[in-house]
């Protein structure tokens, strides 16, 4: 369990985003994995089975989150940033890069995001991803290609623009 924890957590974090929800999804996934061990039938690799559970926990968390009402919205434009440490810009850049990646991921449809994360974070092959998501391999290829392409566009826009582009809300699941 310890050996696989970090990857399970990374999958949940990349799918859900850097929120408390990602922690909740990770814990839910770990408990589901432990409880499901006696029923694991060995028809797939244990890692594939664990990622399936983690992915489902993350997607469930996203659905729960969308059912909750948002309390308030803070507009980044209203905030005034006054860095006191002139050498902190590198750390800030690193954080901004990470936030930009997470923002871009959040802008993807859930199905695209799950496929990209399982490929590029969990390093599963197409067949394993198809088994985890329960879709044909061709659909996996298409989702990864379109998901990566959208990420390239979103991150490229950010690099090109003087200010960070905030992606719009996800349009919902794509086929």
């Amino acid at each position, binding site marked *: 369990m310890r050996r696989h924890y970090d990857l399970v957590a990374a999958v949940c974090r990349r799918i859900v985003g850097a929120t408390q929800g990602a922690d909740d999804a990770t814990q839910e996934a770990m408990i589901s994995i432990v409880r499901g061990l006696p029923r694991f039938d060995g028809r797939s690799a244990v890692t594939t089975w664990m990622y399936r559970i983690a992915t489902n926990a993350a997607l469930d968390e996203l659905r729960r989150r969308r059912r909750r009402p948002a309390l308030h919205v803070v507009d980044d434009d209203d905030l005034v940033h006054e860095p006191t440490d002139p050498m902190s810009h590198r750390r800030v850049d690193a954080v901004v890069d990470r936030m930009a990646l997470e923002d871009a991921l959040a802008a993807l449809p859930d199905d695209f995001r799950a496929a990209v994360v399982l490929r590029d974070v969990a390093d599963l092959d197409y067949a394993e991803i198809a088994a985890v998501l329960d879709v044909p391999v061709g659909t996996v*290829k298409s989702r990864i290609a379109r998901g990566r392409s959208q990420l390239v566009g979103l991150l490229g826009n950010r690099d090109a623009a003087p200010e960070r582009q905030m992606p719009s809300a996800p349009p919902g699941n794509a086929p």
Partner: protein
Amino acid sequence: MTDDERDLLATAYLDGDADEDARTRVEGDAELLAAVAAQRAVRAALAQRPPIDPATRERHLAAALGAFDEAAAAPARPTSLVVPPPPPTATVVTPLAPRRRAWLMPVAAAAVGVLALGGVVAMLATGDDDASTARVDVESSVLARTATAREDEAGPPTVDVVAGAAPDAAPAAEAPSDAAAEAESVPVPTIATPAALTAYVAERQAADGDAGPETVCDRPIYGTVVYRTDARAVTVVVVPDTDGEVVALDAATCVEVARAPAP
């Protein structure tokens, strides 16, 4: 070329899924190479895993282990990693509940009668006593194998196997078989010492040879046992290790519980 085609080609190339023609096409097209480079950069960024708070990790692992202990303590839940084989169809008959399924008894008796008659007819038709002898031998060997095979490999004997010497015979499965029922109810062994671990592996090697093909914790296993320590009993899988030793790994956590010399 549409954007979708370009993205699919670049993705296939980056993931090593492109055939020779596709690779040649990508490598000869500057636009496609740029798309590959852009996707590669995204992939590299994603591969950098976000930092994980060690305290959060420990809290989650503790919750998971607590859930496992809770599940293991529940009497109705199995603790073995190996799914028990489906209900046998050939040689094992589960004792019936007398009140609710009493009506099945006459049906079973009739089936036994029909099967016995079928066997006699088959013997007379062949005129060869060796047929019945062979069938008994095959059935005995199947029962013996069922009694000693591991849970994950001892699939239930089928009608065809049992009746191998007389393929046309109706299933003899409905007849009760005490030996088979006993074999089915063999419990998961409990061991408590490294010496017993070595003896268990010797027994498994004698019965099945090397470990595998079933794997748990990414390793081929000899089998599943309960390892009892002073503190508690743990369901473990027994696997070979390097340096001529065998190891018992906690089936839930893959953590080593005991180690012993290989036989």
